């Protein structure tokens, strides 16, 4: 297998960069996200150190300027490609494959929900609920019995190992408090 073949194979992993490089450019909007966000952040950052002593400024100014410069070059290159018609200004790459978009958004929403709910429902209950919902969503609501058991095992063993055995500070909720009282 040649190197190129290997790179072809490894999509999604740490090698995405190389992978995508090989595909035709057709998603300029998506490629601009990082440079634009980076530039905006650098500008915001500069605003916070404008009146600071030099120790706060030197390295940040240097890094920020290089970031803005390299981002600008990327942008100019993409604009050039746009003009030549090699690419279009869309965000396709971020959402492909389209068929998985609902699942991906659903999983992300569940993840945000996890962080919010865990603060008052505690680790064990929230983890169980999250695992169940996420797995059911991703698996098209098939194999539900297995998913319930797996979620339950993961949540309970997480509690037993971390909260009970190691006494790690996890977000506590009704279940954790109850178990503390019972034991």
């Amino acid at each position: 297998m040649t190197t190129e073949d290997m790179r072809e194979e490894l999509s999604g992993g740490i090698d995405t960069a190389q992978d995508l490089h090989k595909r035709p450019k057709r998603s300029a909007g998506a490629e601009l996200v990082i440079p634009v966000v980076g530039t905006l952040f650098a500008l915001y950052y500069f605003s916070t150190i404008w009146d600071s002593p030099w120790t706060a400024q030197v390295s940040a100014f240097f890094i920020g300027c290089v970031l803005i410069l390299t981002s600008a070059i990327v942008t100019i290159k993409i604009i050039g490609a746009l003009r030549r018609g090699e690419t279009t200004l869309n965000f396709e790459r971020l959402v492909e494959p389209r068929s998985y978009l609902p699942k991906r958004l659903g999983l992300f929403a569940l993840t945000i929900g996890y962080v919010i709910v865990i603060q008052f429902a505690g680790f064990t209950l929230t983890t169980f609920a999250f695992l169940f919902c996420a797995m059911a969503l991703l698996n098209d609501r098939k194999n539900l019995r297995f998913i319930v058991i797996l979620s339950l095992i993961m949540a309970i063993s997480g509690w037993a190992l971390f909260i009970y055995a190691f006494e790690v500070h996890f977000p506590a909720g009704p279940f954790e408090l109850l178990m503390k009282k019972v034991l």
Partner: protein
Amino acid sequence: MSDDYLLELNRRRFLMGTVATIAAGILGSQRIADAYAADFPSRNIKIYVPTAQGGGADRNMRLVTDLWKDVLKVNFEPSFNPGAAGRVAYEQYMSKGADDGHDMLFGNMGPEVLNWVLKKPTFPLSAYEYFFRVDEDPSVIYVSKRSKLQTIDDIVAEGKKRTVNFATSRIAHPATIGVMALGKATGAKFNPIPMGGGRNTRNAVATGELDFGALPAGGMVVQRKNFNMLLLFADKNVLGDKINNAPTVNAKFGTKLPPLVSARAFAIKSSVRQKYPDRMKVLEDTLRKVVATEAYKKAVVKAKAPLELISPGGPAECAEYAKNIAAIGEEYRDFLVGADAAAKKKKKKKS
């Protein structure tokens, strides 16, 4: 923490919780203690700590609370909130802590009051008070045993020839102000290099990168094999030969500097005193009792902390200390926030 308790707790952890009975025993005894405390405190006391678990403040706090819990008949739940030089814990306590006397904070008055000089917190400074000081830890100048500069006179003489760099934990620290004040008084030039924490501050001097350092003396006592202590920023040297009988700055140079000490203390919301003066009295009285016991002194010795630095003080002493350190902070304000550096730069540009 008694040894028995330690042993029990450890074994349980070591076996990763398989010995559930011991756990039940420990937790069970808590409940009994709860039942005995009828009025105040009626629940466990939560203490916000502005430094990490396992640090110096943690140790000092435990030495007190391990005995205090027997007197108050409740347990203590430390909550470690390190970050932003202590700001995080203060902000957390002031926004989330209850003001019924069950929530408090244990911090280091020196550097933490100096924080407010740099940047005010989101709450008014009058909203909390330090109500019990545990110890006073004076700042000390030290050198490595390998260093060329071996006396304080060497350092001052060198500082008159060139700007001498010195290691310090952070700029806004009583020790830093002490060295800068020494420079002002003797005409020597010193340049503070903040190393971020005591460990780095010692290392920088030990490896010879910096000529000398300034830190609270308490932590230097166990380090005296590697370092020589040269000058103390206090009214008198209570540690004696534990820090090489270092002279005090005022005795040595005839200055009139106030003591530049770190002081660990319990703090509480001011509203507690207004709402429950009786509870404040319980807290203060029991603390005073605990710190005076032989058991406390024994625990301090066992933890390798110098006994000489124990210095109990009530709200009045704490307020006095906080006022002094804030005043010094204000005096050195430009230096602390780097305004003098900025001004110098501007001057350079103009010329």
